[in-house]
């Protein structure tokens, strides 16, 4: 019986082996979405807990990585829904080009606010597609939607962001 079959049957040693193989990939993926290392670690634990609970539903013939990423994306999406402030995004703050430092800070804060105000389903595609520049096929697979669905959400996110940035006095 191979490793994934043993995992699906509840073998804890097999689960540990699978975990060690995929933990960095899952953590890196979640980190791209939530943009905070501490949160990413907590959410990685949550994701693998859900993976373990759902082990009986996993088909060993299918790639584990894609299935794990799908669960991890749902965990990250749930986290985005409960996020209250854009403060978490400030961990990775960089200042857009501008001569005036105060203006640069204001622009950065405005952009972060605009992103944080997006509905979670649009925020996640905005982050993955526009900031992290992940392939649409990868985003689609992780969200369980079509590539066309990703494109639609990106379009809607861009439209909302542009409108919000203009309202905040930032010309996109």
């Amino acid at each position, binding site marked *: 019986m191979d490793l994934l079959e043993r995992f699906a049957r509840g073998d804890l040693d097999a689960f540990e082996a699978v975990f060690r193989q995929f*933990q960095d990939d899952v953590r890196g993926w979640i980190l791209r979405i939530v943009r905070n290392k501490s949160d990413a670690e907590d959410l990685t634990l949550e994701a693998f*807990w859900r993976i373990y609970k759902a082990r009986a539903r996993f088909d060993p013939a299918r790639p584990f990585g894609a299935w794990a990423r799908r669960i991890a994306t749902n965990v990250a999406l749930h986290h985005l829904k409960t996020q209250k402030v854009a403060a978490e995004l400030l961990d990775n703050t*960089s*200042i*857009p080009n501008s001569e005036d430092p105060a203006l640069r800070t204001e622009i950065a804060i405005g*952009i*972060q606010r605009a992103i944080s105000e997006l509905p979670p389903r649009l925020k996640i595609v905005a982050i993955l597609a526009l900031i992290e520049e992940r392939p649409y096929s990868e985003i689609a697979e992780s969200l369980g939607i079509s590539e066309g669905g990703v494109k639609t959400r990106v379009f809607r996110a861009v439209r909302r962001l542009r409108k919000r940035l203009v309202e905040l006095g930032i010309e*996109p």
Partner: protein
Amino acid sequence: MKNEEQARLKKLLQQALPPVEDSGRGRDLWPDLLRTMDQRSTRIFWLDWALAALLAGWMVLYPEGILRLLFHL
């Protein structure tokens, strides 16, 4: 939405929020995961007891329900 407008917006977003740097290897989370699994399993155990208590209470209040439950089991 024109491609160049989207490209400009993308550049602005990336300047405000650059792609995260991920070295690819973090600390080993397995001990934490084991701890989490132990804690969550205990919580589920207490939930089982709570459900059993509810069922017992229901059977006391509605004894005829025992026969119906046995029929369906």
